[in-house]
Every structure is written in C-alpha cells, then in structure tokens.
C-alpha cells in the first residue's frame, strides 16, 4: 500500500510542481498584488513635508509654530506664577496646584505630573516644528535663498525662545538643546544651555540679515511691526538681551539692546504677542478666567501684590476686586487676576517695557547708575508714579528694578525667575506654615535623563 501511495504521489507531484510554477508565473506577471504606500489622508505627513514641501506648506509649518507657542502656556503661568507667589490658581478638583506647587507640608514637585510634563512637551513640540521648518526649507525647491534664510532665522529665534522657557522651569537641572533629530543630545547644564540658546539666536540673527525684504510666510497680528526679516530681527535681539541678563552678561546685553526694538520714548506695550481668537482651529487665551469667578475655579492675585503696591500706581488695574473672597486649601485672596481681561487678550512674548527694564538692570550692573535711574523713571512715570527718590546705590537700585519688574511684568511669568537670579527666593512670602518655595522643577520622568 505504501509504495502505491508513493507512486501515486509522484505522479501527482509532477502535476503539482507545474501548477505551482504557473501560479508563481501568474503572480509575477501582473501587478495586482502591488500596493502603493499611501500617505495619511488626515493631515500632512512629516516625510512629505521634509522632502518636497511647497511654499504654502512651509507657510503652514511656520504658522503652526506661532500657534503652537500658545499650547499649555496656562500651565507654564500656573507653575511660575504660583511658585513666584504672583497668583493662586484655585481649582477645587486639582489639589496639586495649591499642594505641590506651593510646597505644602510634605508635598514636593513630582517629575511625572502634568504641571511639568505638559508645558515642557508643548515647548519641545514647537521646537520640533521649528526643526521641521528648517529641514523643509532646506529641501524646498520653491524658496529663494533669501526666503530660506528668513525661514531659518524665524525658526531659530522661536526655537531659542521655547528652549529658554523650559530652562526657566528646570533651571539648574538643565535641558536638552540638541533635539534636531530623534537621536537626542544630552541634557546640558544651565550655563551651557544659556550659551547654546544665545548661539542659536546669533545664528538666527545672521540668517535674518540675509533674508531679503519679506518672509515666505505670513505672521499673525501678534507680530504686527515685526513681520519682515528686518523688523523680526529686532525681536530676535530682544530675546537675546533677555538671555544675556539671565546669563549675567550685562555688557553684552547693552550692546544687543541697540539692535532690538527698545524705544525709551515709545509705547511700553510695543512688542510681540501671541494672539487668540474664537475662530475655527484657533485657541482662546487659556489664562483668562473671569476674575470674579467662583473660588473653586479661579485665578487670584497673590495678596502681597496689593499690599506692596505704591499708592497711585496704575498697575492696580492688573487685578480686580472680587465681590467675595476666594478661598481654597487654606489660601485666600480678595483680588482676581486681571492681566488678561477677555478670552482673546494677547499674551506678550516680550515688550518694550521689559527691554527698558533690561537696560536699567544692565546699567546698574555695569556701574551706570544715573542711566539706570533714568530708565526706571521712564517706567515709574508711565505708571503714574513720581521719579525714583531712593538711594542711588547699586543694591537699592536692584531692589527698585526688581520691584518695577514685578509690577510691570506681572502675570507674564517673570517674578520667580527674577528672584531666583538674585538669590532672593527666600524673600518670597510664605502663606501657610510648612510651605516651601521651590528653586526649580525636576526633569520630567519620561526623559529618562
């Protein structure tokens, strides 16, 4: 029986071999089995953008950068505003704001909680977009060399600004500055990071100097007056001046300021902003909240803002006297946070007022005390206050400069950073026994640093 099966099989096998050969020939003879590698129909793919982006697509990436800078800035503001004792963010369902951020009792800043992970990632998402812009501009056949330089200059400037915001959170823990590819560079310390950011700004500045008369992409009204390479580079220098003072390079700061949009006689609010709207796909200002909202979901000015304010200072307008005291978790305040008065009020990236204060600070630090006083008086007078009448000493003027920065830049994310730069975190008010003032955030856990 066995041999019978084998012989039958052999007969069959010849047929089968023939049959398989035919099938294989059949398959290879036609392209019915071929698949096209289609792109995602739901949005532009990274690969397509980086290889052969059109001019319009490059403009979309640039606009996305501008738009992305606003993502989670409310969390950034909660972080720096609460630790800097400028505002309280009361949210009944979120005890970590009044717990962890104020260092209540045993609470510490966690390295895997949204208050650090989200704003941190949002900034790096914009950084990624700026790197995409650089790559797609490089590979684009539709841009002129000038337009390419404009794209590089814009991308590097914004990238530097975004990196600086993350560095303000983690401070001595450092940040990654080399993130252009998926192969990430190491964490670098604060000094190195500030140096890298300054270099990035300088590179961007030189790109902008070779960028012709116009960008290849539109900028929103938030950049009104700063939307050509020639004007945008004054914004680049303004950020560079901020970086210089953060790095205590005051002489450099004074030089850099000359190329910025500083205008001692001009409107203090001149500057670059993130704008908001209710249009489709746009964002509303996430920091805005009705200043008289229920305690359980409100932004409240730190009580010391009012108590420390000089009489007559018009910066009282940045707070709003509530009809009821807001209280939560053993904290309270009678004034609502009122820097952003509607859900579409713009959020400043940097303003003329800060530049004047940077010049004042740099002048103090380089020994030009009369010059500093004159700068401080510009600010004081603008806010309905008389000229500075205190001691003309370096330390007294630093006090005054920090005070003016506190009030002029209230709700723009500076107080904590300024006090930290001058080693004065211990001077920030403690509201509850056992609270702590943190120096910096831990590096987010998913960084595996």
């Amino acid at each position, binding site marked *: 029986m066995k041999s019978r099966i084998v012989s039958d099989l052999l007969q069959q096998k010849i047929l089968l071999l023939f049959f398989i050969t035919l099938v294989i020939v059949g398959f290879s003879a*036609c392209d019915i089995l*071929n*698949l096209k590698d289609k792109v995602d129909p739901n949005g532009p793919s990274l690969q397509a953008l980086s290889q052969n982006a059109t001019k319009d697509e490059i403009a*979309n990436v640039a*606009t996305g950068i501008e738009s992305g800078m606003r993502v989670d800035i409310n969390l950034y503001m909660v972080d720096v505003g609460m630790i800097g004792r400028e505002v309280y963010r009361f949210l009944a369902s979120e005890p970590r704001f009044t717990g962890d951020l104020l260092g209540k009792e045993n609470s510490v800043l966690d390295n895997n909680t949204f208050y650090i992970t989200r704003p941190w990632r949002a900034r790096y*998402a*914009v950084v*990624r*977009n700026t790197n995409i812009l650089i790559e797609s501009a490089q590979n684009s056949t539709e841009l002129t060399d000038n337009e390419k330089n404009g794209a590089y200059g814009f991308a590097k400037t914004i990238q530097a600004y975004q990196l600086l915001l993350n560095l303000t959170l983690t401070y001595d823990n450092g940040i990654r500055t080399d993130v252009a590819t998926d192969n990430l560079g190491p964490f670098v310390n604060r000094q190195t990071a500030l140096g890298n950011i300054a270099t990035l700004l300088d590179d961007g500045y030189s790109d902008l100097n070779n960028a012709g008369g116009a960008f290849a992409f539109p900028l929103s009204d*938030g950049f009104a007056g700063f939307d050509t390479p020639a004007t945008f580079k004054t914004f680049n220098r303004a950020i560079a001046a901020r970086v210089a003072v953060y790095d205590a390079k005051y002489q450099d700061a004074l030089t850099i300021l000359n190329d910025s949009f500083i205008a001692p006689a001009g409107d203090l609010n001149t500057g670059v902003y993130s704008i908001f709207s209710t249009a489709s796909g746009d964002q509303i200002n996430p920091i805005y909240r009705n200043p008289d909202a229920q305690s359980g979901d409100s932004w409240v000015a730190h009580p010391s803002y009012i108590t420390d304010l000089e009489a007559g200072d018009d910066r009282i307008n940045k707070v709003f006297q509530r009809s009821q005291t807001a209280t939560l978790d053993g904290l309270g305040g009678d004034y609502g946070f009122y820097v952003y008065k509607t859900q579409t009020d713009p959020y400043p990236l940097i303003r003329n007022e800060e530049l004047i204060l940077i010049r004042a600070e740099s002048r103090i630090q380089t020994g030009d005390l009369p010059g500093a006083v004159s700068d401080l008086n510009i600010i004081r007078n603008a806010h309905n206050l008389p000229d500075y009448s205190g001691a003309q000493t370096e330390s007294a003027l630093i006090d005054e400069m920090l005070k003016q920065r506190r009030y002029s830049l209230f709700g723009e994310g500076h107080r904590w950073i300024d006090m930290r730069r001058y080693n004065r975190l211990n001077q920030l008010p403690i509201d509850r026994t056992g609270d702590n003032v943190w120096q910096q955030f831990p590096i987010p856990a998913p960084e595996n640093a």
Partner: protein
Amino acid sequence: MKLKLFYFPIIMCLILLTTTDILHAQFKVNGTVTDSKSGEPLVGVSIVVKNTTIGVTTDTKGNYDITVPGSQATLTFSYVGYISKEFQVSTQTGTLNVQLKEDVLGLQEVVVTGLATSIKRQNAANSVATVSAKELGGTTVNETIDGALYGKISGAQISANSGAPGGGFTVKLRGVTTINGASQPLYVVDGVIVDNSSNSAGLNAVTAAAAGGSSSNQDNPTNRIADLNPEDIQSIDVLKGASAAAIYGARASNGVVIIKTKRGRIGAPKISFSQSIGFNSISKRLGVRQFTLETALANYAPPPGAGATPDEIAAYQARKSFVESLYNNAEQNGFINYENEMYGQKGLLSNSGLSVSWGTAKTQFFVSGLLKNEDGIIKHTGYEKQSLRANIDHQVSKSIHLSVTSNYIHSTSDRGLTNNDNTGVTFGVSLAATPNFVDLRPNQNGIYPDHPFNTANPLQTRDLMTNQETIDRFIASGKVDINLLQTNSHIVKVIAEGGVDNYTQQNKSVFPRRLQFERISAQPGTSIFNDVTNMNTNLRGVVLHTYNPPSGQFTLVSQAGLSINNADQNTIVSVANNLIGVQTNLDQSASINTQQNRTFQNDRGIFLQEEFNVKDTYILTAGVRGDKSSRNGNVDKFYFYPKASLAVNLSNMKFWNVKDINQFKLRIAFGQSGNFANFGAKYTTLGPSNIGGYGGILIGTTRGTEGIRPEQQTEIETGFDASFFDDRATLEFTLYQKRITDMLLNRELEPSTGYQFETFNGGEMTNRGIEVGLNLNPISSANFNWVSNINFWKNTSKVNKLPVPAFRAGGFGATLAIFQIEQGQSASQIVGIDPVVQGPDTTIVTRKLGDHEPDFQMSFYNTFNIFKNWEVSFIAQWKKGGDNINLSQLLFDLNGTTGDYDDTDFNTTELRAAVAGIQPGDVNGVKRTKLLGVSAAQYVQDASYFKLREVGVYYNLPRTTLNKWFGDNVSAIRLGVSGNNLITISPYQSYDPEVSNFGTQPVAGGVEVLPYPAQRKFFFNVKIDF
C-alpha cells in the same frame, strides 16, 4: 481585466492536461429518499457515485434517478443535517429506496479547512465551533448575530456592552489576544469581509465623558455586525485561534467568524412566514432608597459645622426648609420610584420574517425579508430594522456554477443617553442624583421642573432629546465555480469570488435649548451630526485541484490563490452649539465645529494549501498564506503565516475493535496569524493649529513608526474527538496554547522629541485553555427525543514579557480600580488601592484586586421532542468568576440614593474598616463611601452568573390537521412561546454582570458606570410554511 490575464495561462494549461479514462458500460438506479423517523420525503438529497463527480439530487417528492458507469459502484447519499449513507449498487439493483437519519449530534457537520475547502467534522484536525441555523434562531428571537451566539461557542467570551436596543457586543475568542490592536474577530459573510467597527455618535460633546479620568470614548456605540439579520443565516463557523484561522492570515488573530446565508432549494416555492410578538422588561431592578425626612435632611441639608458664620447658618436654614417642603409635598402626593419611571417600560417587540425558497435543478432562489421593531425599556428608545435578501444560485453550464447574494439593510436605533458623563446629564447619572421625594414630572402644560439637585432633569432629557442612529447598508457577493477538468481521478476547479460591503451610518443627536442643562450652558442647544461611510471590497481567486488516484488509497486536494481586500472609511462629525430656536440643522446655530477622519486599508494575500487524506484515517493539511497590507510599515513586504495539522482516526484503523467507541480521533494543529496596527500608527502627521486667520500645522502627540509590523500569534491546538454507543454520544476535548509575540504596544517617548507616544512591536503574552464538549442523545424514541449539548471552557492569559513599565488599560484610576497590563500577570487583571500592613505601619498600596477573565464557563443546550409535535429547548450558561468594576453603585452611594443604602449587611475586612474609620452602626452607603480613597476592593465585584439565555416551547400542528384545515396550501404551522435571559442568578450588585462602559475593548470590558440596563424578553411566535 488583470485577474483574467493572471488565470489565463493556468486555465490553458489545465485544459491541455489529457486524460485517458474511457467510459464503458452504464446502468440506472432510482428510488426515493425519506427521513428515517417521520417518513417524509427529503428534497435535494445529493447522490454521488463514489470517487467520481457523477451525481444527482432528489426532486420535490424525494425521487432520484441516476445513471452509473460501469457494472457496479458505491452510491453516497448525503443531505445537510443528516448522516450520510453508502450503498453498493450493481446492474441488478434497479430501485433503491433509502432512509436517512437526522444528524442530531452534528457528526456530519462540515467545517472550514481552507479558503475554498471544508471537511467533515469527523476528519477535522481543528476544533472549529459550528452553529447551525437551528441552534442560532431555533429557540427564540435574537436581536443581533453576536447576541445570538451567547453560550453557543465554547472558548468564547461574548458579552453585551449594555442593554440598549440595537446591539453592542464584545466577542473574545480564547482570551485577550491583543492590547492595543483591533480586538474583535474577523467576520466573513458569504466570502465578504464585512465591517464590524464601532463608530461613536459624538455624544462626548454633551457628556464630556472623556474629559475626566479616562480619555476613552463612552458613547455606547453598537458594532456593525448587528446589522445582519440572524434569520438569514444558514450556519456559522468560528475559527477560534491561529491554528484554524491561519487561512485568513494577517487579519485573523482575534479569530474568524464565517457566516453562510441560506440558499434556495430545488423544488416548488416554499414560502415561510414567521411572526413574533413580545415584550421586554428590565431584567433586574436595583431598588431605590426609601428616604425618611431624617435621612433626606441628613443627605441634602447637612447641618453646618461648629463655628459656622451667620451666612452659612442662614443658608442651611433655607436648604433645610426647602428639603422639608419637597418631602412634605411627596408625603402628600406620593413618593416616586425613579427606577420604574425611567426603566419601567414594557417595550413591545415585533419581528416579522418572510422567506421564499424555490428552484429548478439549474437555478435556485432564496429571498427573505425582515421587519423588526423593538421598543426599549426606556421610553423613546428602540430599534427598527428592515432587511431584504436575495440569494441566487445558477448552474450556467455543466461546468460553471454561479451564485450571487445581496442584502440591503435599513435600521434606526434610538439609544437614549446612558453610561458615564462628567456633566450630570446621562439618564443614569441624573437618576443617581434623584431621590424619591422630588417630583420631576412635567405639569399639565408639559413644563418640566428643574432638578433641584442636578444639572439635568432625566425625565425631561429622555423625553426631549434625540440620539438616533440610521444605517443604510448593502452587502453583496458573487461567486463563480468553474470545473475546468473532471476525470475519474482529477478535478480542477477555478473559483472566483468577490463582494462589497457598503454602508452609511448617520447619528443625529439633538439636545434642544429648553433642556435644563442646555438652558444654563453658555451656548444652549446642541446638535451633533455624525456621518460615517464605509466601503469594503473583496476579491478572491482560487484554483483547486482534487486528485483521487485510481488506487483509491488517498485524496489530495491542492489549492492556491490570491485575495484582495480594500476598505475605506470616512467619518465626519459636526457639533453645532447655540441652536436657533427649535431648529436642529447644523447651520441653524451660532457656532459649529467639524472634524473629519479618514482611514483606509489595502491588503493583498496569496495562499497555498495541501490536504492529504489517506482513507479518512490520516488527514494531513499544510498551507501557508502571505499577506501584505497598507497598515504595515513596509507595504511591499509579505508576512507569511504557515499552518499544519494532522488528524488520525484510530477507529478507522484495522486493529480498532472497541465496540462502544465508534470513532476515536487524535488531532494536532499548528498555525500562525497576525493583527495589524491601528490606522495611523505608522504616520507622523501634523494636525491643524491655526492662528490669526492663518492655517497652521503642528506635530501631534504620536510619532509614527515607519517599520511597524503586524502582531504575531502562534497557536498549537491538540485534542481528541470520540463518538460512543452507536453515535449516541460524542466527546470533544481540546487543549490550546496561543503565544502572541511582537505585540503592538505604546511607548512613552522622551518629551524633548516633541512627541508623546509611538507604537512599537514587542513583548509577549500567552493564552492557554481547555475546551470540552459533550453531545448526548440519551433518549431517542418516536415519542421522546432528548439531545443535550454540554460545553466547558477555560482560558488563562499571562503577559510574559513587557518591554515597557506596567501600564493602565482602561478604567478611572487606581482609586476606583483599573485594568493594568503588567509583566508576569494576567492580561485582564484589575488593580486598585488597598491598605496593607507593612511592619508597624499600615499603608495604602496599589495591588491586584481581581481579574475580568472567568475561572471557567459552561453552557447547556437541551432540546426535547415530545410526542412528535412538541419541542422544548433551552440554553443556559454558567460563567464562574470574572470580576467587574462596579462604579454605578459608587455613584448611587455618593448621591445617597442606593437601594440598599440604609441596610447594614455590607462587610469588609477589619483592616479596611479600621483605616476607613467605619463605625459599628454605619449603614451600607456610609460604609462604602468611607472606603472611597482607602480601598477599591468594594468596586471589584464578582460577576459570575448563571443565565437562562434562551428558552422556547413549540407546537407543530400535525400534518393531518393541516390537511383538514388548509388542504395542500399549508405544509407546516409552528406555534410557540420563547424568552431571552429570563433567569439571571449572579452575586454582582448591579443591573447585569454583562456590561462595558467603554464599549468593545481589547482588555477593559466589565467597567460599569450607569449603563442602559439589561432586558429580558418574552415572545409569542408563529411560523407558517406554505
């Protein structure tokens, strides 16, 4: 057409194959084939000369007439549902009358072995579950196909996501087979891969369910297999693991459900009309808390603490007198049981079916229609379906057979607003906030009072809102069988089949301005419109070669072919807010937000298979399938899925002489299958991000994985099948192990990349299980026939390797218990917080508190035929173990409205009680509320159950009576009563142990947050055959 070009050389070649068989003498045999029990003639019995392709079928009177070549031969008589018989015939035979015996134990069932082949169960090397039309719908009326499979498939965990009309089921075959991939079986209807997606209605815009602890959708969607009409189904084969499902390659990891619809029969038109009328009701009431004035005040107007300000005291006084007035009012006008008010409707159920089957020897038709109209147990909810089917078979010529199926379905379902929310608007969540002493009913003018303790008045929401899903679906397929070559030893066939599944799903949800919660919103009035269009197309070509050598020692079946599947889906959901007046069109609003999402899938497969059968003693099968897909990173790469199996029928060997064991077969099977990554896993896509009127694009949270591969499943299955005592009992025993490697997992990325997640292949998990099936026909006499089918199955899963830290896979956080995927643990484990003693301290840790997977399941299916005309059948299912996360009870407790709030029988451990500060006198509600934040153990509840799934009692009018009443006009009338889920016994402390707040999930089934409660159904049935 390219397909034709491809086949052309093969066809040409095969035609050229020469044969040398010469026909010699021939003779005729004729006779009648009847049922051995009833003596009724059998129509369409197939009579084939063994080892040839010569065959005929019986006519409408059961007569046949066959011409047999040679001088003697063996005739095989076979008929669906009957045991085949063989007879030796010769020129002397002349007339041969044959009686066939009904195959009550399914010994002769045919199961799928390849894309173009099947095999008698007796020879099968796999444990393939088969459900016949009778098992599927013979006992009672089922709403959906997946619902009709309850308790009928061993190895399956089939669970309703809720009791909402229109379906919504989770089907798991042999355990959790994926964590992030598609989790439902592949459904193939008459060769067409049909879509079974769950497309949510967009209700999250109102419920904000995804805004809280879980970002998952909680819209309670149906899954689209619900559209098919269960009564159109002839049989269902369920391929439970890769060893059988490898024939479907890269899409088969979750198993394959192969559905065949009914075909026309040869003979005069057979018209069958069935009508069922019934009603449903909530299957279990939880009861409501009976408030006293004291408990009402304690709950709704608690006195202020010491040191309260005068303002606070005044506010308390006002609240107290308000609650008192509500309570006094209720004492006068009556307390209201809101559970009855909301879930108390006895819905009317109506199901009408008409089918016509007729045909000549050349052409057969089957046409059926269905009208279904089912009310829900909540007012204004229900399900309506109309379905029309036409299936045509035509023998074009001696060698070409054509069959066409077509099915159009229209359905609407009103599913209400249930499950979790974060806005207090769903029926369940509002109900939990409603004590029995408030009156929310509308006044004479139809004005609904505002709910004093909640943002929504559930009666108003129920009466004025709309959440309607409309489906229009067309499924069609065509198949051509061409016999290219037919000799005594060779049969070569080409089979080409193709099909299309096209549907539009529209969900219209309207929440008018006057609803309490809309009125107080910033933009009152919400209209949500969701539109999904889906198109699946399939094409498959197979060349099939059967070789019967003249020696008759073996049969060799070879098949090779290719398959092409394409699927496209387009979803547009628009949410309009601030509606103008009572208008509901999207443009009649002050603001509108639209989102569109498109997905596609293109698959190309090739396959080759050999089946080698040595005299039904050794049956060896080996095959391989290669698949490539647009879902893979590399779309040009074929992934290969081999399979091999061996069945050895010991009882067919010469030495076998065990008298009481008719058949004994050992079998072993191995196979591999895959599962694709979710759409988009390979893309890095930038999303819209606009500013200042300019359109911008920004990277999203997901980084695409360009090299993403399918998940890989390898299954080994082994067991034996035995048949005892003259086929009065059969036993099927199966062990399996599934190993899933290259799992699709999500990895958290360093945020400085700008991204948050990417999908990658890694890790490994296994499912091991046992399935035992026992079929018995203990009593078989003319007046009493009893068939019993008992199944036992058990599965355990384990995550062997997990290259990422343990992660959560559904739920609302450890405080409320949550599913957690963790190396070394079951894939369906539930963890939660719980206090433990560690040295001198008691600390609250997160630890395992339960497992959703049952310890085992059993099903019992019994049919009794009594005095010929009576038929009683029932299906019962016992699920032992398997935990749910019951958060309905939590929400009732937090609102103080639980039915057992004031009882004292709730127990917990001493440690938990001590940590939670539970006092001896505390009532249940207080005890459980105190445990919130201390332990999650009270939410993890045993969801074991025993359910009487289906029961039916039928009477078939005797033929003599029919003749007397109707003459020849009516051939059968069947009357009966039936029920679904009439009895549920379960320790679970909510409506029903079958529930899933997150819908159809790979892992996180069994989370309950105030669902649409389960229903029980009762029907009166009439069926008339003309």
